[in-house]
C-alpha cells in the first residue's frame, strides 16, 4: 500500500536477537526458524491453503523472533498461530481443528523420520495416531493457538503489512529479458518458494526490502544456470532494482546456508526443540558450556 512502509528489524535487533540473548546459539536459532517455516509450508500444503497466506505466515513468523525469544514461545505454537492469523488476513480462514490435526500429524511424521531415516529403510511404515477426540491435547493446543495469534499481533505492534515478492519477480525477469528462459523463471520462483529450501525459510524478509530479495533469487538462478548478466560497474543489473550488491550477496548467503547437511542428531535435536519446554531444558543442559565459551 502506498501510504505505509513495511517494517524491518533494527540493527540492534539483528545483532542480538532475543533468543541469542537467552543463550541460544545463532546457528541453532536459524535452524529452528527454518524448521518452523518448513512446518508452516507443509501444513499449508496439507490444508490446501492459498500460497499468499502461507508466505505471509512465514514472514510474520520470521519477524516475530526479532521481538521475542524462543525460550518464551515454541516455534510449533507460533508457526500455527502465524498460519492461522495469515489465513484470516488473506480472507481464507482455516478451521482450528484442521490446523491442529495437521500440525500433530506433521510432528509425528517428522519424529518417525528421525527415528527411522528413509535411507536405512529398515523401520516400520509411518502410521499416524490421531489424538483422542475428547482428550485434553486438543484443547491445550487450541488454547496455545489463541494465545499465539494474539501474541503475534501484539508483539508486532498490530502491524501485519506484508509485501510478497512474486509480482516483482515477474516484472524484473521481464525487464532483464529472461522471461523466454523458462528454466530461469522456474528456478528463481523456486528460490522464493520451494518446499525444501526457500528464501521464506530465512529471516531475510525481516531484514531487507523486497527488491533486494528478488534480486538475490535472480542472482542464484542465473549463476546456477551459467547465464551472464551485466555486472561491471556503471552497468550492474541489480542497480536497476535499487539493490546493493552487498545486500544481495548476503541474502543469497542466507539461502545457501540452508543447504548445509544436517546430521540425524541435529535433526533429532531440532524436533525436541519445537516446544518452549524443549528449548528450556536444552538451555539448562547446555548452560554451563555456553557460559564458558
Amino acid at each position, binding site marked *: *500500500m502506498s*501510504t*505505509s512502509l513495511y517494517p*524491518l528489524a*533494527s540493527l540492534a535487533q539483528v545483532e542480538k536477537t532475543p533468543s541469542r540473548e537467552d543463550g541460544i546459539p545463532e546457528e541453532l536459532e536459524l535452524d529452528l526458524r527454518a524448521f518452523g517455516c518448513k512446518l508452516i509450508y507443509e501444513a499449508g500444503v496439507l490444508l490446501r491453503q492459498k500460497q499468499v497466506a502461507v508466505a505471509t505466515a512465514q514472514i510474520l513468523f520470521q519477524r516475530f523472533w526479532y*521481538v521475542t525469544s524462543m525460550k518464551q514461545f515454541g516455534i510449533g505454537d507460533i508457526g500455527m498461530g502465524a498460519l492461522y492469523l495469515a489465513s484470516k488476513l488473506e480472507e481464507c480462514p482455516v478451521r482450528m481443528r484442521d490446523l491442529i490435526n495437521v500440525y500433530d500429524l506433521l510432528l509425528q511424521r517428522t519424529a518417525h523420520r528421525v527415528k527411522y531415516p528413509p535411507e536405512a529403510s529398515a523401520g516400520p511404515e509411518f502410521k499416524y495416531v490421531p489424538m483422542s477426540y475428547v482428550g485434553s491435547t486438543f484443547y491445550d493446543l487450541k488454547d496455545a493457538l489463541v494465545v499465539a495469534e494474539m501474541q503475534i499481533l501484539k508483539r508486532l*505492534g*498490530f*502491524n*501485519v503489512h506484508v509485501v510478497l515478492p512474486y509480482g516483482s519477480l515477474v516484472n524484473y525477469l521481464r525487464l532483464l529479458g529472461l522471461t523466454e528462459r523458462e528454466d530461469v523463471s522456474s528456478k528463481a520462483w523456486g528460490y522464493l518458494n520451494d518446499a525444501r529450501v526457500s528464501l521464506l525459510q530465512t529471516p531475510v524478509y525481516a531484514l531487507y526490502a523486497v527488491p533486494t530479495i528478488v534480486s538475490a533469487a535472480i542472482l542464484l538462478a542465473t549463476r546456477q544456470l551459467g547465464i551472464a548478466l551485466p555486472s561491471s560497474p556503471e552497468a550492474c543489473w541489480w542497480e536497476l532494482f535499487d539493490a546493493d550488491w552487498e545486500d544481495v550477496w548476503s541474502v543469497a548467503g542466507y539461502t545457501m546456508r540452508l543447504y548445509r547437511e544436517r546430521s540425524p542428531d541435529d535433526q533429532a535435536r531440532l524436533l525436541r526443540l519445537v516446544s518452549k519446554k524443549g528449548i528450556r531444558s536444552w538451555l539448562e543442559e547446555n548452560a554451563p558450556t555456553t557460559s564458558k565459551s
Partner: protein
Amino acid sequence: MVCSAFVRRASTAINIIPTGPRTRRSVKIATGRKVAIKKIKVGQFKDGLDMSAIREVKFLRELKHQNVIELLDVFSSKKNLNLVLEFLDTDLELVIKDRSLVFLPADIKSWMAMTFRGLEFCHRNFILHRDLKPNNLLIAANGQLKIADFGLARDFADPGYKMTCQVITRWYRPPELLFGCRYYSTAVDIWSVGCIFAELMLRTPYLPGETDMDQLKTIFRALGTPTEDDWPGHTKLPDYVPVGQFAKTPFRDLFTAASSDCLNLLGKCLIYDPRRRISAKDALNHPYFFALPYPTHPSKLPKPAKKEDAVPLEEVDGNVDQNGSGPGVKANQPNNKLKRKHSSDELGSRPVARRLDFTKS
C-alpha cells in the same frame, strides 16, 4: 466480540466511563485529546480473534485520509483488544433523523463530496468498504465526514476469486449481491453511496426492504425492473429469481427540488449494470460538484444540538438489531460486567502492547 454500535458520551470527565460490553467509550487522555475506544472481546471458546477485528486493524493501520476515521493506537488488556480511534461527535444517521435540522442542497453536496473523497481513497488503495450506510459515516466536531467501521472491509480479490455476497446492510445492498453474485468490485460501494445520497434528500431511507426478497422488489419498484439491455447477463446470476415487472418511477417525481445535475449523478450511482455504474473518481469529477451552489464548508454544516449523553444505550442496542442482516452485525454479547471506574492513572500504567521496535525501512 465486536461492538458495531457507537455510544458517544460527551464526557468531559477524566475517567473512563464503562457503558457496556459493546460500546465506544470516550476518554480524555494525557495529551488532552479526546479519543474513542472500541473494545473487542476475544472469545475464549471461539476461533481466536474475530475476522472483523482483524480486518479493521489491518486496514485502518494503513489508511490515513481526512475523510477516513483515524486509528491512533491499538492495545490489548487481558481478554480484550482495544482500538483507539479519533473521537467523533455524531454520525450522518443522527443528522438525517434530527427533524429540527434543515438541509440545503449545498449541505448535501458537501457531505456527498466528503463521502466520495474518502471512498475514492479506499478504492485507490484497493480496499472495498462493504458496509456503507449513514450510521457508518461519522462526523467530527469541525464538520468533516469520516468513513468508519472497516469490520467488513477487504482488499480486492484476484479476478476469479470468490467473495461472500452476504455483506452490506440490506437497505444499501446492491442488486447484484442480492442475486448472489460472488465476483464484484468497487461498484458495490457506489450503490450504497447512491442510496445514502437519496436518503439525504428524502430524509428517510430510500429503499427500505424488509427481507432480501422484499429488498429486490423495493429496488425494482423504485427503479424499474431491469431488462437484458439495462443489465446484460443478470438473469444468469446464481440466486436470480424473477420478482415481477415494475415500471420505473422517474426521479423527478420523488426528488422534486433536486437539480438535474444532482439527479444525473444519483442515476449514475444506481445503474443496474455494475460495470457501467460510476466510479468514485469519476463521481468526484461530475459536473454536480462544480455547479452552483458550491458545497457548504464543513464547519457550517447543520449538526444536532449538543446534548450530554445524547444516546441512551438501549436505543443503540435496538438500532443494531434492526440492521441485523450482514455478518458484521451479529455481535450480541451477554457479558455485561460493569467495572468500577478506572482512574486515568490506571489507564497509563495498564500493560499496553509492547511497541514494536522495528524501524521503518
